[in-house]
Structure formats: C-alpha cells, structure tokens
C-alpha cells in the first residue's frame, strides 16, 4: 500500500522567480520524511508539486513505479492534510470523509466500513453527523486526517497540520501522528518549520534553504553532524554559537584553532589541506559548554542575561574580547547577570565552518 516517492531534478519557477532549483530526493516506502526550513524556502511548493496542485517546471516525480508529474492530483494516489484542514463546510464529518471514495465509485458498504474504521481509530465516531463549524480545532484536524486515511493512499502529505493547534494539543497530536505512522506504516511527507516536530516525527529530515536541499539525514545526524553552517544554525535551540576564527594550523593529528576570545584550541579534526581560515567560524552548542566550579580556571565569560527554563539555565554572555557566547548550566545553577564565570568547551563537539558554509566535525562529536 505504501509507496516510494522519487523526485528527480525538479525545479519550480514562478515567471522569472526560481523557487526550487534542481531538487532530487528519494523517499522510501513507509518512511516518515519531514521537510524543514525557514518560511518561504519552498517546502509547501515541493509538497504541492508531489500532490499535483502545482506543475513542475522541470524534472520528474514518481510515486511507486508510476510517473505522476503529468497526472491530475486525484489520480496520483496521494492524500493531503492542509494547514487550514480544508473541510467541506456544508458536509457532515461522514460526508467529508466519504466524498473522495464516492468519486472513485467505491461501494456504499465499503465506504461505510472505511469511514467507521477511521473514525474509531481517530476517536471521532461520535462526531460523524456534525458539520465542521460545530467542531473544535483539534477535532477538525482529526477529521482532515480521517479524510486522508479512508482513501488508503500510497502516501500521506501534510502541510503544517499542527500549526493551528494550541501547544498542549499540538504535543498530543504529534504523538498520535507518530503512533498512526507506526500502525499504518505508510509513506508520510510532512512539512513544518517547527524543529521539535521535525526531530520527533521524522525518520529523515530534509532541511531546505534558498531553493535547495541543504541536508538530508536522520534527526540525530542533522543535529550532531550538520552539513552546513545554515543547518547548524537553524536546528537546535538555543542556536549554535558561531565564533570567528583568526587562524588555523594543521598538525599531525588535528588542528590548532585560534578563535576570538577562546584562545588556542587543539581539536582532533580533519580538514582538507586547502582549507582557509579566511571567513571560517567555530561552532559549538550551548549544551557542550560547561560552567566550571568556583576556583577552577578556564575561559572567562561575563554574564549578560540569564534565562531559567526550569530544567536548565541558559547563560548569554560575552568572552573577554566581546564575542557573544551562549552557555548552558543545570536548572539549579546560581548565576546572575554581571557574574564572571569560567567555562570549558567539550572539544569533541566542535564544528568548523569554512567561508563556503561547509561543515567539518571534530572526531567523536
């Protein structure tokens, strides 16, 4: 039932504006793939091209072993859940769910069976006779998912389906979507700009930026070994620290990095010989920076702002030469603005980004 999706050299132009440029991506049957990226990067456009709601300017798209980019949306065997849910306002929940099946002449009994099964699964059986106006946001959302499920599609497409829900409901629905995927084992493509959704739901994340795919990888790969400076900065909260690099010298087994305010750091990290320190930056996440106990000396940091999140404390400060740096301490840390701390970096967790944005990771990070 679930099918692969093959996107080959796909581009999209609106007039002279190029929105997507030569995108290739293959999604395995049953895989949960998340398109993640900042607003306007073309996530929805790519999803809508799979659905058939937008033409491709160049390239091909296949679902299963069938080329679909020339087929109308209804013939592609995919179902889509819209951000606005797009339920038919004048139809009841049951009619909303049956409409697509009636159009392909599924028998009445079969429609009944599928609608009731889906309604049970989604716990909306008691709402079948209601119209969408009389449903809460969360219930509408379920109906929209139900409308997709009954079609037993080869792939599900979701365009930010959770963004209209409040935080608590969003968390719960996220979990339920994960369960749904585990049960149906269908191919799912999910668009979001929420990295928590991406990290928790995805088998693989496709990070998009500037008309291109920036990186494709498992959530942990994306987080731990970001391919580019953009990915490193986009994924993770608080955002990764980027510290300008003054000089780099390569020695036998690694590099000595002279970074603003940090002094010279020796890291085990392999760089191409042509690597130039010009415009390079050292990257490290706040969680890989620790505050040393009083009395020990490390790298000095002047604290400017402290954010207490309960389970952890974020410390925004400046290094001795004024470079900004965010560090993390545990929830009970006694830190105040104006304090002078000594910090240490986990040298195995650093990344080096060349002027071209390409990342090089410390060994073992």
């Amino acid at each position: 039932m679930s099918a692969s999706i093959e996107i080959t050299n796909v581009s999209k132009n609106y007039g002279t504006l190029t929105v997507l440029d030569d995108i290739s991506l293959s999604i395995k049957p049953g895989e949960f793939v998340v398109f993640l990226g900042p607003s306007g990067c073309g996530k929805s456009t790519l999803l809508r091209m799979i659905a058939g709601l937008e033409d491709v300017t160049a390239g091909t798209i296949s679902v299963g072993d069938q080329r679909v980019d020339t087929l109308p949306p209804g013939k592609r065997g995919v179902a889509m859940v819209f951000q606005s849910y797009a339920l038919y306002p004048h139809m009841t929940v049951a009619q909303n769910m049956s409409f697509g099946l009636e159009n392909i002449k599924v028998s009445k009994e079969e429609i009944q069976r599928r609608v009731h099964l889906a309604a049970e699964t989604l716990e909306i059986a008691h709402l079948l006779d209601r119209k969408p106006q009389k449903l809460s946001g969360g219930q509408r959302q379920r109906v929209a998912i139900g409308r997709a499920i009954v079609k037993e599609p080869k792939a599900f497409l979701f365009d930010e389906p959770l963004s209209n829900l409040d935080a608590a409901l969003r968390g719960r629905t996220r979990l339920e979507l994960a369960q749904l995927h585990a049960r149906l084992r269908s191919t799912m493509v999910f668009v979001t700009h929420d990295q928590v959704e991406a990290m928790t739901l995805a088998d693989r994340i496709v990070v998009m930026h500037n008309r291109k795919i920036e990186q494709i990888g498992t959530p942990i790969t994306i987080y731990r070994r970001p391919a580019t400076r953009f990915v490193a900065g986009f994924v993770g909260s608080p955002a990764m620290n980027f510290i300008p690099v003054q000089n780099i010298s390569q020695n036998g087994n690694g590099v000595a990095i002279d970074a603003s305010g940090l002094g010279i750091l020796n890291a085990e990290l392999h760089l191409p010989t042509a690597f130039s320190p010009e415009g390079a930056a050292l990257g490290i996440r706040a969680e890989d920076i620790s505050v040393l106990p009083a009395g020990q000396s490390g790298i000095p940091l002047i604290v400017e702002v402290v954010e207490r999140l309960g389970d952890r404390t974020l410390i925004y400060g400046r290094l001795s030469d004024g470079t900004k740096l965010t560090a993390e301490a545990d929830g009970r840390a006694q830190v105040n603005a104006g304090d002078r701390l000594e910090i240490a970096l986990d040298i195995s967790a650093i990344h080096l980004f060349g002027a071209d944005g390409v990342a090089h990771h410390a060994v073992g990070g």
Partner: protein
Amino acid sequence: MSRDTTYRPEASRASRPLLWIATLLAIVTMAPVAWLVGLSIKDNRELMLGTESVFRVPYTLINYINILYSSQAFGWFFNSMVVAIGQTLGVLVLSSLAGYAFARLEFPFRRTIFVIVLFGLAVPEQAVIIARHQMFNWFGLHNTHIGLILPGLSSAFGVFLMTQFFKAIPRDIDEAALLDNASQLRIFWKIMLPLTLPAQATLGIFTFLHAWNDYWWPLISATRKEMFTITIGIASSQQNFAQSEGLGFLSAQAVFASLPVLIVYMIFQRHIVTAVSGGAVK
C-alpha cells in the same frame, strides 16, 4: 452565526430614541399599505360615497372574488410569474457559471472581460432602450414572454456578486476536492455551488422582486393587453379610471399583485439575513 442574546437588554435601553424613530418610519411606510388593504375589502359603491367608509363595517371579499371571475388580472399575474421566475432562474444560472469562471478558471482576457462586465453596472437601461427595442423588433420578440425575460438575464450585478462570493471560498477547498478525485463539474456542483447558497438566495430574491416590479421594459415591449405584466395591467386600469371597476376592486388587484413578493420574502427571509450579515462561508 449565532445571535448574541446577552447584550440585547442593554442595547434596547441605549437605543430607545432610535426605536421610536424606527416605529414612526414604519408607520409612515405602512400607512399607505394599510390604506390599500382597507380599500380592497370595501364595497365599491360605498367607497364612491366617500373613502372614510374604510373605517366602518361592513367589510367584504367581493373584490377578490371578482378578480377570479371578471378581470384580466389573472392573465397578467401569470405573465408576471413567468417573467419573474424565468428571469430569476436565468440570472442565477448565468451569474453562477460566470462568477465561477471569473473566480476560478484561467482563460485569456479574463480580467478585461470582467471589467467589461462591470461596465454593465454603469450603463442605465434608458441609454440602450431604443437600440434594444429595434433589435427585438427585428427578431419579432415583442409581445412574447421571451422578449420580456431576455433583457433581465444579463445581470452585471449578479455576475459581480457571485464572482466575489466564489473568490471568498478558500482555494484549499477546491484543492482538497481535486485530491478527492472530483471533476471540475463535480467540484462546481457539489462543493462550490452549495457554499454559495446564501448568495444565491439574496440574488434570487432581488432579481425576482426587480422583475416583478419592473415597469419600463414591459411597458415598451408588451403592447397587447393579454401580454401585460401585472404592473402594466394595474397601471392601465388606473388610467381608465372612469370605466374602471371601482376603487375597491383596483385596490384588491394591487394587493393581489404584491402577494408573491410577500411570500418570497417570508420564505427566504432567513437567507437574506444570513447573506447580509456575511456569515456565509466559514
């Protein structure tokens, strides 16, 4: 959608003077109507002695019974029905199709054509009536139902209203239907059209009322007495007052003529309110 009942008492206190003004206006508007109804249920001979007899018994339904037997009002009423219903249905069908096309379909010169349609709103009937009269003459359409219906079918207002209404329906809905494997025709018929019902009701009522009360074109086009619409018919009997069947009878005809309007209003009142209050698509 649902009416807020909690704020009503407060509103009524604040708007008491307004209420008085509204009542006064209602009386001013209703008085002639009440007068007409009064005249219609009085005996013609009694009225000839003086119309103040309206305020006295006896009352009678004889004038209404006379309409059934002894006048052409029935034929005129029928003509008006044919014209008003024909125009209403025609306008609804044409405006819906055109509105959907302007709102959703891609075709060359769409915007230009839409602007041309909007120009129709600005052209008064008087400006084109001679040319139209001549044209209908050539085609032999005067004194026919078709001839009375046709000019009212090109409703720039209807096309404009329906276009705006279709545009207000979110695109996602069509797209969901496309993914649901619905054909263009089925999307129009099963999804879009039902969503415009409030607009259809409004447009339908306005078109019906306009057609029913129309005076100018029927006056010009229908010259044979049996092709008169009820408005022309009543007007013609009033002009021949000397030979007319009396004031009470005339009034009964007028009341009779306004019945359909009243009925249409009562049936569709709810839709008018919905459409005007704008809670149409949500």
